[in-house]
Every structure is written in structure tokens, then in C-alpha cells.
């Protein structure tokens, strides 16, 4: 009984967010859980971190993804695999209308407003923009955790602050 329960529990999908990590061949996923404090009878947030197998690199830092336990552990650390990306980070679609959103406004509306005021050449064009990740490691250093600089090495690490 207990064995079958554990097996079914393994098949559960977990929803988590991809966080910056140094590990190269796996994604680090943070799953938020609530834990009951029996003395206070209140729930408190408790994060759990899973290293997930992701050979095709479908998830990038910040994405909300679904993960599932692997039938067998790949390594000591890697226990889960990334099933699919549910919400890509910084590229939000309104679930009701299916239109793209930036903050609280539709991108269409913002474009329309710019056209009414007289659109300039310097405006950012979503259609011409390359997919996310073209500045990674060049000007955008957010895919790996940064740390306090502790030594002077020969080659300068941009992630050391």
C-alpha cells in the first residue's frame, strides 16, 4: 500500500520557477510550498529546490515550469525532469483574450497610442526583436547567481560584484 502510494506521489507534477544556478546541464527549480506551524496554526512559506534534467534547454531563468520525478535518479542531484514551460518569463499573454501584455496594458494599445502621437524611428518593435537570450553573458548577467568578489583572479568574472 505504502509502496504504491509513494509511486503515485512520484507521478505528480510540480509547478515551480527556474532560478539562476551554476549547474550547466540541469535546471534548478524552486517549488513553493506552505508548511503548517502547529503551535501558531498558521501556514508559512517553505521553498524546495529540485535539480531537473533538461537536455534541450527549454527553460530559461525565471520561467514557470512543470516538473516530474524521474523513474530513476540520473545523478545524486538530478531527480526530476522539466515537462513543459507554462509561463515564459517576461513575455506575458493575457489568458482571456490571448493578446500579449506588458504590465497592465496590451501591447496593441501601446502601439496604437504611439501611432496617434506620431511614432518615431526609435520605438521598440516587437516583431523585429530577436527571441530572449541574445544579450545573455554580454550585457545581461542574470542567468547565474552573482557573488561578492573575494580575490583577484587572472580572468575577470562578470558575476563577481
Amino acid at each position, binding site marked *: 500500500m505504502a509502496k504504491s502510494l509513494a509511486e503515485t506521489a512520484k507521478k505528480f507534477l510540480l509547478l515551480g520557477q527556474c532560478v539562476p544556478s551554476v549547474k550547466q546541464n540541469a535546471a534548478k527549480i524552486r517549488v513553493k510550498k506552505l508548511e503548517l506551524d502547529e503551535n501558531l496554526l498558521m501556514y508559512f512559506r517553505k521553498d524546495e529546490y529540485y535539480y531537473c534534467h533538461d537536455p534541450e534547454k527549454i527553460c530559461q531563468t525565471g520561467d514557470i515550469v512543470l516538473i516530474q520525478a524521474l523513474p530513476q535518479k540520473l545523478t545524486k542531484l538530478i531527480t526530476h525532469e522539466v515537462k513543459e514551460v507554462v509561463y515564459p518569463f517576461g513575455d506575458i499573454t493575457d489568458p482571456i483574450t490571448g493578446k500579449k501584455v506588458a504590465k497592465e496594458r496590451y501591447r496593441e494599445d*501601446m502601439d496604437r497610442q*504611439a501611432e496617434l502621437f*506620431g511614432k518615431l524611428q526609435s520605438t521598440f518593435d516587437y516583431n523585429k526583436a530577436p527571441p530572449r537570450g541574445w544579450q545573455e553573458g554580454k*550585457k545581461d548577467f542574470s542567468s547565474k*547567481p552573482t*557573488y561578492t568578489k573575494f*580575490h583577484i583572479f587572472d580572468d575577470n568574472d562578470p558575476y563577481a*560584484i
Partner: protein
Amino acid sequence: MLRHFISTLIQTRGIKHTVNIKWVRPPYVPSYKPEKSGDLEGLPPVPETTLGRYHALSDEIKDASESVKKIFSVAYLGKKEHHILFKQELVNRVKRHKYDETTAETKIASITGSIRCLQEMMEKFPRNVKMKQVVQELIDKRKKLLKFLRQYDYKKFEWLLEQLNIEYKSHPETYHKLSRKESLRKLTEMYCEDIRNKKLAEYKNLLESQQGPFLKQKLENLKFIRSEQMDLKLPITVSEQVIKTVEKQLEEWVIKDKIKEDAKKKRKNIILDLD
């Protein structure tokens, strides 16, 4: 007092150094400096002879004499007017329309302009504490705006970094004062990891070098067994496929070995050339 005296007499710090690690403390860099704030570019090129912001709009100045133009140029109107032009230059790179002042990209651009102007002033007057504070606040504000923009519009965030030439680095887990002990611990850990990797690589090399002779032996033995079984008319247990796979493995190993030897020779030649 007494403790200080004892510590100078008996140097306890340098005793346990069995591992040869030299730690160099990173020098202090003030936070207003461009390498800390992430500005990869200085001020945009706006010469001092350009007219002021509002003076350039008037019709009279178009056919005015050189001396009048000189008086209404930025060099005579003051630094403040010059800085406004710098800011405008940056804002013009990302503006959506003529009246755009409140969107995130224009806000970030104008803050960037102020930061760069103040950074230049800080180089001249590094003891101006009030200004230092203002720059720091502006840098933090810009970082916050960039962080939010990254959350709701990643494509625009990347485009903005490219347009304004800014580097974005996320916050570290903790901001703490650097200590000698922590740094030495990290360095020792790295040293140990290095030794471990070196040993593992050496062992892997050794095992790979033994693979070739073993495969040759295996191939001979398999062929011998097959021929014996054929001669004695026994049921054949070694199929030709097995022999073929072993041959393939041997071929692959030979190619790998050649590449390795070539690399070794090259390294040797480089060392000889250096000598």
C-alpha cells in the same frame, strides 16, 4: 591593549599555512564608478558650441552673428544646460513618440543621462558627499526599474541594455563585508577541487591508454575461438557481429589516440619554442 601586545609578539595568523595559497584582497572601488554601476559608455558627444535647448528653437538665432551664437551656446549657458542635452541625446535613442516622458524606457534613459553626468562630476570632486549620495540613489533606482522591466517585458529589457550600453547584474544573495577567512576558505576549496579534477583526468587517461591493447587482445581471442569452433564443428557462440563491433571500437580508439598524441606533440613544440 594586552591582547594587541601578545598578538604582535606571537604571530598566530601565519602558522597553519600548509597550503600555498596567496590571497589578494580586491581593492575598494567606490560605488559611483562606472565599472560598479554598469555603464559601459561615457557621455555622448555633444560639443560645447551647440545651442541651448530652447534657444535652438527660435527663428532669430538662425541668422544671428557668430558672437551671438557663441553667447547662447552651452559653454556660456552653463553645465546644467549641457547636462540636459546629454540626457536628451540618450532619451532620443529610445523614445516612442514626441511627448513620451513617462514610459519605463525613457525614465531609465534620462536617469542614465543624469548618472553619467554626475559620474563625470564625481571624478572632479570626489569628496562631494552629497553628490555621491545622489548618484548612488539614482543608480539604485535605475536598477530597480530595470528589474521590473525585466519581469514584465524581457525583450524590451534586452533591447534597452543594447541601446543605452548598460550592464545588468542581479543582486547577490547577501551583501556582506568581505572577510579574510571566507575568502581563504573559498580559495582552499577551489584548490582542492583542482587537485581532484587533475587526479581524475590522469586516471582517465591511464585507463584509456590501456583500452587499445585490451581490445587488440580481445579481437584475437574472439577470432581464435570462432575458428576453433568452426574446425571442431561445435555450436558457434561468437557471431561475426560481435567481432565487427570490437573492430569498430578499436578503430575509434586508434583515431582518438592519434588526436591525443598530436596534441601532446604540439604542446611540447610550444614549450620548446618558448624556451
